[in-house]
């Protein structure tokens, strides 16, 4: 029970980075391997705001998320849009975007190593205990999970209840048909990419309240998010949330019951199961 609750609390943060990635890959068709760097950068900015200006990380999100939105918008328009335009087919775009975002990954990682060094960093925020069904959990973890739920709910309302959100979902389903009903696909893709970056940054900010982070750990989170995205079905927000919670629980269970050094093995075991039995994802439709 304790394992499941801890896993779900961790899964909340995974959900945000995975939703971010699934928007970027499912809608903008860019497999953003530098997504984890946005995540880690948000951790560091939250840390800097908290220690230098005593800004509560929960309020810090209000600064960090819009900043991440604009930075990602810029990256998409300046660097990735030209790749979309020159690609002759989806396969070429995939190879190009993988290589370009690898470039960004190493560049940002290198810059962060320069700026913050390679050491693990953390700060004390809401380090109290919180009682759930007779067991104590870190209050910061519970608060982070609550905030993640609020953010995910807001995104859900945006995607399913507004015209812009519907346009974004339409592009995820089929960019060519979306064009036919008058949707500005290029704009929707840029919006989705920027939004994905903002959500990832929210995840990073929340993670920094209860987890120690360093400049080179982004890759690990990108990897987990990628696997969650595949599990949930590319472009599917609900699938990403459920897959993130499953992964959070599976990882915590393996770490507790077998060995903390085998968390990635747990992730891969899930990944292989998905590849063998449901390669289209939990909610994905069978491709023709």
């Amino acid at each position, binding site marked *: 029970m304790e394992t499941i609750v801890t896993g779900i609390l961790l899964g909340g943060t995974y959900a945000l980075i995975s939703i971010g990635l699934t928007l970027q890959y499912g809608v903008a068709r860019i*497999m953003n391997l530098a997504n984890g760097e946005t995540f880690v950068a948000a951790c560091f900015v939250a840390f800097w705001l908290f220690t230098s200006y005593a800004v509560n990380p929960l309020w810090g999100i209000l600064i960090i998320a819009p900043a991440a939105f604009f930075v990602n918008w810029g990256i998409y328009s300046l660097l990735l849009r030209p790749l979309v335009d020159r690609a002759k087919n989806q396969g070429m775009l995939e190879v190009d975007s993988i290589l*370009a975002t*690898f470039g*960004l990954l*190493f560049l940002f990682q*290198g810059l962060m190593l320069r700026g913050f060094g390679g050491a693990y960093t953390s700060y004390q925020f809401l380090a109290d205990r919180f009682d759930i069904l007779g067991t104590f959990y870190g209050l910061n973890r519970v608060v982070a999970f609550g905030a993640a739920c609020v953010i995910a709910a807001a995104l859900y309302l945006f995607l399913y209840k507004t015209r812009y959100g519907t346009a974004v979902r339409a592009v995820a389903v089929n960019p060519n048909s979306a064009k036919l009903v008058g949707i500005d696909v290029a704009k929707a893709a840029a919006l989705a990419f920027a939004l994905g970056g903002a959500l990832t940054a929210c995840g990073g900010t929340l993670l920094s309240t209860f987890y120690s982070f360093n400049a080179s750990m982004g890759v690990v989170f990108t990897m987990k998010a990628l696997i969650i995205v595949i599990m949930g079905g590319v472009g599917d927000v609900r699938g990403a949330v459920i897959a993130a919670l499953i992964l959070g629980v599976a990882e915590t269970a393996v770490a507790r019951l077998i060995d903390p050094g085998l968390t990635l*093995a747990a992730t891969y075991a899930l990944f*292989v199961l998905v*590849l*063998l039995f449901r390669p289209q994802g939990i909610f994905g439709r069978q491709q023709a």
Partner: protein
Amino acid sequence: MTRLTHREIMTAIVAAVALAVAATLPLFDQGYYLSLSLNMVMYAALCTAWTLFSGPTHYVSLATAAFFGIGTYTVGLGLDHMPFPLLVLTGCAAAAILAGLVGAATLRISGVYFVIFTFGLAELIRQIVSYAQIKLTGKMGLYVFTDFTEKHVYWMLLALTGVVFLTGWLINRSRLGFAMQIIGNDETVAKHSGIDTARLKIVLFMISGAFIGMAGAILAPRYPYVEPPAAFTPMTSFLVVIMALLGGTRRLWGPLIGVIPFMLLMDFISVRFPNDTSIVMGIAFLVIVYLLPDGITGRLEQLWAYLKKPQTQPQPVTAEERA
């Protein structure tokens, strides 16, 4: 098999002479230059083996570090029980089996799954190897004591590179190579001509993985102490991708053109700016994507085609230009 053309015989002679000249290097220097050349030959072998698979299929494989580490670790584990040549073959086989498993799980579906799977593969194998070693023997890492010095490793690697080139050339002449060419150009066409695309991709991935595992095994005696984080460092995978693409993957010798300048650059960077290697790698990736999409050899071929075209005569207007 067709008969060798005049040009192929000439290329073979030039390649053999180049190998022979490279093999004399340890007679002149046993220090810095040998070490640097060893790195170059190592990456030449790795990048060419990588290109065997990733060149025609356009799948960015990041599994290099996993295969390499398995080769290294096999030698470390078995050194007390088996002769070295047998260990190299075992490492080679182990890497091929891993490649087969990964291929069977991912290459039947689309290429994205393959990239994501290989992205974390080295880290996964590292975790499993560390866990198994601690559980079974209670210690981490291995000592590799052999009579080999750097020059022996260098010669073995040079021979391996020769074998990789020869294999690549033989593949290109074979039915497998022809089928891969069709798959690379248009997979749907390949399927409709009765090519079992998934199976061929898996076979090619296994060949490529086997050579990478062999290189890892040969490299093991270079370090007296091998531990999982060093043997499975993901950097190997990324550097191989950069150098192979920098050179260009359309030609068998393309990666070689990327390896030499990039190794010199990395050598310079790691001495002058040791903390900034990630930044350099990041920039290298961006340069490849935006400036050298077909690598240096791709650009050279463009230049060659441009120079060969008669410049003075007016060009006839083709149907495409008119349209």
